[in-house]
């Protein structure tokens, strides 16, 4: 087993006492830097969220119109781009260098990437807050922003692209240097798929924002609005699919950390990720279903992710991850009935709570609504109504953000090497955030079904030249959204409190356990490693998961068919 180290490549490692992983110090510093930036933008975006929710809650109607649209632009960028991509870059360095016991290739370039991302994100926020970019995060041409807004986005994207390339390089070099044998771990593979999607995302971003930038400078006379929508969404949607792949990788990690779960069948889980890599970008078309231009075949073929094969990938994970948890629990003797494994699971361990709530909210609400409103014809019922933000708050916020929050609690002792403080708050936080987001999402979807538009300052249409009366029930659904948002913001503040207090107080200390509060200190070493690849016997087969997944499919079918019925009540159109 020869280890060929490329000349002039020196890296310093420490060995983690809990996971036994060899940790490249340079990689660790970059993970910390990116994670800190991520949390800063989450906080800013969260403040914006509070202001927005209190404005759309018509009874309160906090912000004036111009500030509402401004803050909405900032909220979109800070959450969908800044917070989540910074966290994912940290995740990419973790999944490559740390999990493979390898050195991060090009740490100095990684710092350049970080600087570009920080400068870009700050530039965007400054231009937005100065009122020079009231265009929403989508910046649909011919709506025009100040050139520095586009430049900020471009700088951020270039930085992120460098980070993605360094991830590829690190994995490749780690293989050549013999840092790991055989196939990379599943979590790394999931992050690899995230990086593959990210490459396409960022190149598309350039193809959208560079012409728009030149146009805003007056160097290009015209950018076709239809072109911009096609290319913007091949940046905008795959950006969210990066989140999906990364989130699923984090789910597998949290399952291993909290209950010692191992993939039941690597082939199946990896197949699911491969389906994502090959087909998931096609789904960008679901933003263009109600657009003039493309015909039925293009819309239908693309929105279905190639016969829904990418959705099949999600269905696979929907079985494989609960199944892995169930088998791990059954191996420990929790075999009574169909659900003892679930009842006696570590619900008080922050990572487990975040994992389960994230999966339920993402799957049952986010995934289902996504497929439904991404159905070519049904989209006309939902396009640009508040149902859309309802969908993507279920996926990006209740799903990805909640999972990332859960993972952060483990990065603090393992990477930041600080003791996690305010543990009681950390235990409650996933539930508070999850419940808050659930209500926010219900309020949004309910409002959208009543026809309430998204990105709209006043649905009472006071001062409009013609009178419009939208359904009175919308006052209730918007209030539910407002209340849910208040609770979710509390959940966000709890997260910030735990993270800030833990990182900034107390001495640096080596982690002595993998889990945070539960009795079992290290399910990874005690259970996961010894059980890798072991056969699943009848006694420990995941019967409970079978029941859960079939129940899910029944719910999916019911919601799907109800929407066709709703569509059937609309005016005839072709």
């Amino acid at each position, binding site marked *: 087993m020869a280890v060929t180290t490329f000349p002039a490549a020196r890296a310093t490692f420490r060995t983690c006492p809990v996971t*036994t992983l060899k940790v490249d110090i340079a990689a660790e510093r970059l993970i910390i830097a990116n994670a800190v930036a991520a949390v800063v933008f989450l906080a800013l975006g969260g403040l914006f969220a509070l202001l927005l929710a209190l404005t759309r809650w018509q009874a309160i109607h906090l912000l004036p119109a111009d500030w509402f649209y401004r803050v909405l632009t900032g909220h979109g960028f800070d959450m969908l781009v800044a917070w989540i991509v910074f966290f994912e870059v940290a995740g990419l360095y973790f999944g490559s260098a740390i999990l493979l016991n390898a050195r991060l290739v090009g740490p100095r370039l990684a710092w350049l990437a970080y600087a570009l991302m920080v400068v870009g994100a700050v530039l965007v926020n400054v231009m937005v807050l100065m009122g020079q970019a009231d265009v929403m995060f989508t910046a649909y041409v011919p709506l025009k922003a100040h050139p520095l807004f586009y430049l900020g986005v471009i700088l951020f994207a270039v930085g992120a692209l460098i980070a993605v390339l360094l991830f590829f390089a690190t994995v490749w070099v780690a293989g050549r240097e013999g840092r790991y044998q055989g196939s990379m771990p599943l979590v790394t*593979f999931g992050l690899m798929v995230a990086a593959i*999607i990210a490459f396409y995302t960022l190149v598309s971003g350039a193809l959208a924002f560079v012409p728009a930038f030149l146009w805003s400078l007056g160097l290009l006379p015209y950018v076709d609005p239809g072109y911009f929508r096609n290319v913007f969404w091949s940046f905008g949607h795959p950006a969210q699919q990066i989140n999906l792949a990364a989130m699923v990788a984090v789910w597998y990690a949290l399952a291993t950390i909290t209950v010692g779960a191992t993939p039941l069948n690597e082939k199946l889980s990896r197949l699911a990720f491969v389906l994502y890599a090959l087909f998931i970008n*096609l789904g960008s078309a679901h933003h263009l279903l109600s657009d003039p231009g493309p015909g039925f075949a*293009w819309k239908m073929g*693309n929105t279905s992710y190639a016969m829904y094969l990418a959705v099949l990938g999600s269905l696979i994970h929907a079985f494989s991850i609960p199944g892995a948890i169930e088998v791990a629990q059954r191996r420990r003797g929790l075999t009574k009935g169909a659900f003892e494994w679930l009842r006696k699971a570590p619900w008080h361990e922050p990572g487990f709570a975040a994992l389960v709530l994230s999966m339920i909210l993402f799957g049952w609400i986010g995934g289902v609504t996504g497929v439904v409103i991404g159905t070519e014809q049904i989209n006309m019922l939902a396009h640009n109504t508040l149902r859309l933000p309802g969908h993507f708050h279920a996926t990006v916020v209740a799903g990805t953000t909640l999972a990332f929050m859960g993972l952060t609690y483990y990065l603090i002792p393992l990477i930041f090497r600080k003791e996690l403080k305010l543990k009681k708050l950390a235990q409650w936080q996933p539930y508070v955030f999850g419940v808050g987001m659930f209500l926010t999402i219900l309020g949004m979807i309910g409002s959208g079904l009543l026809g309430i538009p998204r990105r709209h300052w006043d649905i009472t249409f006071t001062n409009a030249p013609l009178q419009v009366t939208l359904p009175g029930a919308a006052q209730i659904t918007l209030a539910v959204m407002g209340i849910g948002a208040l609770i979710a913001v509390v959940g966000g503040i709890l997260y910030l409190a735990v993270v800030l207090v833990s990182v900034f107080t107390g001495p640096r200390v080596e982690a002595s356990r993998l889990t945070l509060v539960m009795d079992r200190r290290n399910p990874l070493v005690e259970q996961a490693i010894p059980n890798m690849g072991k056969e699943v016997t009848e006694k420990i087969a995941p019967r409970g998961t079978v029941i859960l997944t079939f129940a899910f499919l029944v719910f999916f079918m019911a919601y799907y068919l109800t929407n066709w019925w709703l569509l059937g009540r609309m005016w005839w159109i072709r």
Partner: protein
Amino acid sequence: MSEPQVSAHEEPQEIPRGQKLFDNWILLLLLSLAISGVFYNAWGLIELFTLPPSPIR
């Protein structure tokens, strides 16, 4: 963590083609770009650029 796999016989195991395919992330990257680029971007943009002019006078 990756302990080197040491089997009792030190025999090279025949890795199935499917496993090797899934491990080939460079191939997955290229396929991903090709499929998305052709079916979503190229086809979609061609539909836009071949639209007929309006009959409006």
